């Protein structure tokens, strides 16, 4: 089974990082992974996204094909909903995407006020990690503590380990937002 | 008499004009324009229409209308 996750938003909303953190988790679990950032023309107009695929078999195209999980940090990201599998899950940033937005009704919609949640824990930049936490809880791709450790390692390797407490808090805020 | 007009939608909030204005008549505002920038506003009473903001603006935001 291959999982296809898409993290999408404005540049600056951390959607590449969110994808990379998932990639690291998959890698550590010994899975096949590919991470594909939007680049070049698709990036025009400040849009950004990353596609993560992981699974046990060799992976095909690294591009969006049939999305299992879409994390939409802003309104324009909803255009990718068209590529979602039936029964797929879309995690949307309810702080920026109005409730009355039209969405296919054959997918499961999870609304997370990730900006507000991040603000609450005073880690505005952590909205993407809130989403990571929510996805982990909801989809159970990886075990909670393993996810947190991987996330911390990721930032530590980037030389940004000193924000890790705040990062963990953001993750947990998202994790706990899922009932 | 002349007046200064701003086309706020063009503004990218670089603040070149803010720095250059001899009258400190310009400042960025809280609001965002559709490009996502905190655009610039003028305090008309301070402005003497010297045109320096026009000169330094990379995005053609200003217009001075003589009347």
């Amino acid at each position, binding site marked *: 089974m291959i999982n296809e996750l898409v993290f999408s938003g404005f540049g600056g909303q951390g959607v590449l990082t969110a994808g990379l953190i998932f990639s690291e988790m998959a890698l550590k679990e010994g899975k096949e992974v590919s991470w594909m950032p939007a680049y070049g023309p698709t990036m025009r107009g400040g849009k950004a996204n990353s596609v993560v695929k992981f699974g046990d078999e060799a992976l095909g195209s690294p591009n969006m094909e049939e999305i299992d999980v879409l994390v939409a940090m802003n309104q324009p990201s909803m255009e990718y909903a068209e590529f979602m599998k039936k029964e797929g899950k879309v995690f949307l940033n309810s702080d920026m995407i109005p409730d009355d937005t039209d969405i296919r009704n054959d997918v499961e919609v999870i609304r997370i006020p990730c900006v507000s949640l991040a603000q609450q824990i005073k880690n505005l930049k952590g909205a993407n990690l809130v989403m990571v936490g929510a996805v982990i809880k909801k989809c159970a791709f990886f075990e909670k503590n393993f996810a947190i450790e991987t996330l911390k390692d990721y930032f530590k390797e980037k030389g940004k380990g000193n924000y890790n407490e705040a990062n963990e808090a953001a993750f947990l805020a998202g994790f706990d937002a899922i009932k | 008499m002349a007046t200064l007009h701003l086309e706020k939608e063009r503004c990218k*909030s670089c603040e070149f004009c803010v720095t250059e204005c001899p009258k400190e008549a310009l400042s960025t505002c809280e609001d965002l324009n559709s490009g996502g920038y905190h655009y610039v506003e003028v305090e008309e009473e301070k402005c003497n229409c010297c045109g320096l903001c026009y000169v330094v603006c990379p995005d053609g935001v200003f217009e*001075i209308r003589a009347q």
Partner: protein
Amino acid sequence: MAVARKIPKIMEEPTAFCAGCGHGILNRLIAEVLEEKGQEKNHILILGVGCNCNMNFTWGGDKLQCAHGRATSVARGAKTGRPDTLIISYQGDGDAYVIGLSDTINTAYVNTNVTTFAVNNTNYAMTGGQMSWTTIPGQHTTTSASGRDCESTGNPIKVPEIIAQNFDVAYVARGSLHSAKEINKTKKYVRNAIEAQLNGEGFSLVEVLAQCPTNWKVSTVDANEWLKDKVVPIYPLGEFKKREGRDDK
């Protein structure tokens, strides 16, 4: 004194440059001069490859996108085809001075009656900020991560000086865009260059020191300071080759 000012029609389309990009200012200066001279419908901008490629979608006058570094050679061909039309190459420092060095020098060498505006932002901006031959000593770029080492990579190149001193051309100047005062001076240079071509005086080159906050990785406001304090001291401003009998201008 209040003067009525309005951006030229050629600039009507909003630019596609980053916030605080010098290209935007120069675009306007050129557009203004073209308008003053009544050349809105009688010019072709030959666009080099760099951030100025954005002008393909915004510049309201005629334009011709060519290959990286070749704008002056293309201009030579275009001037032959349209001798009565203003032919202006608009290039970056990488385009005009590095990959296009031979084209630029040779156009000066034969003194073709065309104009080149070379936007020197001390880096290859379009491709993400690599070192250019204009990158200043110690400047950090993506290919000079620990600061430019001039010992091994050469000192900042000064093509206007080389051309003014060694070739028989019409006009050469360098301006900067870090303040209203310098912008106004630069406009004078732009006007001289275009007038030189209109009068058939030969090749004119204006280098324009321009902000690139994005790749300098500074705020837009700091970019002006950086330009003034770090870049201008290395690249002297002024006219290196004045138009004959026109020192007054």
